[in-house]
């Protein structure tokens, strides 16, 4: 214990060194801006800074990357709340409540709450990372693809029940997304599906083209064509758009949502494959189920926003656990960090704590600090982005579309991705017009291939025995929860009808 504290004190001193602290600030700024811009994901920006870390030591490199990670998973909620355009898929649930609050004129509260929830979730998860990594890692290792599959199914199930429209609509959208996810070369046997001999389809549809097409371009088209009275520009008067942090009393009232978001985020973050996106959807779904007034969700409920935003940032600490203790990156961002470790001749894994305690504890303290500094950076960024609301709508729309095309082109330096993005934009427009929910589609694209791969791997690994999903306790529990989530609305309706008959 004393040794840990001494290590932490040394880590604090090191992370406050000018270069290191500068990296935290720079990382947060890059992360928040990249996360907020619809065409540029947090992951893009981590990959882009990798070459800049060649000349730095391992500590500033990792501080820069973890700070981008921390800022990046939060950043997308700013544009989500302000313009209904989430910058990254994990910020979609935050957008549901956040944008509604914005429309109700409570944009300051929505932004402030998102910042605070992110910071609290991230800070506490970094604390868990600091003090409880080894036991967490031990549990994570007992999970196999059977459990990964179950968690992915939970993510898919939660997006169906949290939709505001019909379950049938959500399922249609989800299956359409899962279908799009099958396009391209399949990971297990290398078979090409639904490519029709078109070269760029053989490598699959990148989920980023779907994300920015459906959310950003679709939203812009919808707003420009003027169906909604409250288009992005006049959702709230700019003078009130400065974020306001929630009071301690407000936070205390939301303690349940914070704790549930934290738990979901850390656990799901620590499981390879799933990550922040699943964490945020599951925690939102969980919040809706435990709520006494689930019907109010989607109209600007603080609980929903708080839980999802807490879990998104809590997943950062969770995802760092298997990376640092086992050398196993569970997400795209941690895979790039793994690359940075290797470039500096350090292999993360079981010996890291013993061989490089100084570096490890500096990263821990750096993450704790970054989450605190993020409150300030988040407020500044929210203010800057809110200024954009003053920009006339057509000009803003032109900029958003430009960003989307740059982001799409940068994926593979291929114009085909830009055309795809446009197509998805048109699809998004019509889905809005016909009231088909969009989030299930994007989640289907992201999680469909994962579900397929983990299912097939489990089958190979267990001699094609389907019962393995129910004989392994954790998988059984998670799958039953998913089934419960799916059946609960129907069951509730049935119970209500029976009640009505009795009366």
């Amino acid at each position, binding site marked *: 214990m004393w040794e840990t504290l001494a290590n932490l004190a040394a880590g604090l001193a090191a992370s406050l060194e000018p270069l290191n602290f500068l990296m935290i600030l720079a990382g947060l700024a890059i992360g928040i801006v990249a996360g907020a811009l619809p065409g540029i994901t947090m992951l893009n920006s981590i990959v882009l800074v990798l070459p800049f870390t060649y000349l730095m030591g391992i500590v500033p490199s990792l501080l820069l990357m973890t700070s981008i990670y921390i800022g990046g998973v939060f950043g997308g909620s700013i544009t989500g709340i302000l313009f209904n355009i989430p910058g990254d898929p994990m910020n979609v649930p935050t957008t549901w409540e956040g944008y509604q609050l914005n429309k109700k004129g409570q944009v300051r509260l929505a932004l402030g709450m998102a910042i605070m929830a992110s910071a609290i979730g991230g800070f506490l998860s970094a604390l868990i990372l600091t003090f409880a990594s080894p036991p967490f890692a031990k549990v994570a290792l007992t999970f*196999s693809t059977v459990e990964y599959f179950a968690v992915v199914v939970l993510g898919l199930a939660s997006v169906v029940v949290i939709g505001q429209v019909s379950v049938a609509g959500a399922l249609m959208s989800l299956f359409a997304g899962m279908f799009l996810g099958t396009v391209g070369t399949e990971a297990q046997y290398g078979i090409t599906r639904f490519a029709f001999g078109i070269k760029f389809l053989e490598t699959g549809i990148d989920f980023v083209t779907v994300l920015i097409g459906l959310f950003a371009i679709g939203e812009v088209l919808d707003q420009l064509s003027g169906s909604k009275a409250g288009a992005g520009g006049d959702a709230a008067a700019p003078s009130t758009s400065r974020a306001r942090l929630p009071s301690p009393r407000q936070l205390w009232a939301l303690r349940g949502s914070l704790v549930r978001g934290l738990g979901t985020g850390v656990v799901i973050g620590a499981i*390879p494959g799933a990550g922040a996106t699943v964490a945020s959807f599951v925690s939102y779904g969980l919040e809706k189920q435990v709520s006494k007034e689930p019907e109010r969700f989607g109209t600007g409920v603080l609980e929903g926003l708080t839980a999802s935003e807490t879990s998104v940032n809590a997943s950062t600490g969770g995802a760092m656990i298997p990376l640092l203790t086992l050398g196993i990156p569970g997400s795209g961002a941690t895979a790039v960090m793994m*690359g940075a470790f290797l470039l500096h001749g350090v292999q993360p894994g079981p010996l890291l704590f013993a061989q490089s305690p100084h570096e490890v504890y500096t990263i821990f303290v750096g993450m704790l600090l970054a989450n605190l500094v993020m409150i300030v950076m988040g407020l500044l960024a929210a203010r800057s982005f809110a*200024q954009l609301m003053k920009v006339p709508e057509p000009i803003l729309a032109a*900029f958003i579309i430009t960003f989307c095309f*740059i982001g799409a082109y940068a994926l593979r*330096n291929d114009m085909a991705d830009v055309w795809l993005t446009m197509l998805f934009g048109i699809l998004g427009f019509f889905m809005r017009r016909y009231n088909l929910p969009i989030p299930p589609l994007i989640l289907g694209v992201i999680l469909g291939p994962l579900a397929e791969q983990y299912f097939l791997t489990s089958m190979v*690994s267990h*001699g094609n025995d389907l019962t393995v999903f129910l004989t392994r306790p954790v998988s059984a529990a998670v799958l039953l929860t998913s089934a419960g989530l799916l059946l609960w609305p129907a069951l509730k309706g049935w119970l209500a009808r029976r009640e009505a008959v009795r009366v």
Partner: protein
Amino acid sequence: MSTKVRILGLLAFVGVISASAPPLFPGAALAQEKYPSRPVDFIVTWGTGGGADAMARTIGQHAQPILGVAIPVSNVPGASGNTGLGQLMAAKADGYTIATYIMDTLATIPMGLSKVTVDDLEWVTRTQVADSFFFVKSDSPYKTIQELLQAAKANPGKIRVAATGYGTVDDVTVRFFEKKGIKLTTVPYPKPGERYASTLGGHSEVLYEQAGDVLQYLKAGQLRPVIIFADKRHPAFPDVPASVELGYDIQLPQFRSIVAKKGVPADRVKILADAIRKGMETPAYKKFAGEWYFRPDSHMGPEQFGPWVREQVGILDRYVKEFGLKR
């Protein structure tokens, strides 16, 4: 700060992002220009954080000052490296675009999964050769390779081997044992992390991997090697029997290399190869290579590398036909 300034700031950010992407219009080719006079794009045909990525970025970093121009790396993963190769083939054969090429990609040629043949490329330099092993968890009941193979014989298909995928060299090795009457099950995990987690967590009995990739687990005593697929034992693992010595004549070492499109002028290939060789001779690179247990004779210049690759394709082709792996 005015709104205008803020928007300008955002624009500057876009500028930075787009400037760091590979140039859209590589200048018109000049036959007599000094080479290299502008950055050499390095396509990594695998994702960030993997072995090919580490090789490219480390060599790129050390060869940069020798070549005198920047070597920006971009990752284009997919289809066992063939997606990135597609980009290489789309570029000009002027020596300003190079790519990584590893054994796993070579294996896709005899499988009929690659459109890029051996003759489509300039084989600039072989940078790394690393032997593959079977590893088991340290508390595994199988103390030796013989015990492991005995158990596999007694329970066909019950021993699971975590591998990169079907039709890969990992899979070919497993099929080789099947031909000898020892049935193991290949479980494909394309992501290295999932492959290691499945073995450390006891969800796969065996891991097929190179030693450098799992060094941490070896040092921490979490994994132990039971066989090396080579003709002789490795000096760092004197107690681990070699496959050939046990009568299993299979050795498909992982190699990683740097290639260019066919048709790059010979003098430019030589300039590239020389810079890479000098980069590999730096102490920092040598330390990296030692830690990853690369064979000391890994380096192979353009003259020997091409013929060596053709020989490897021949060996793989034989196995693929023998095991009926071709699609």
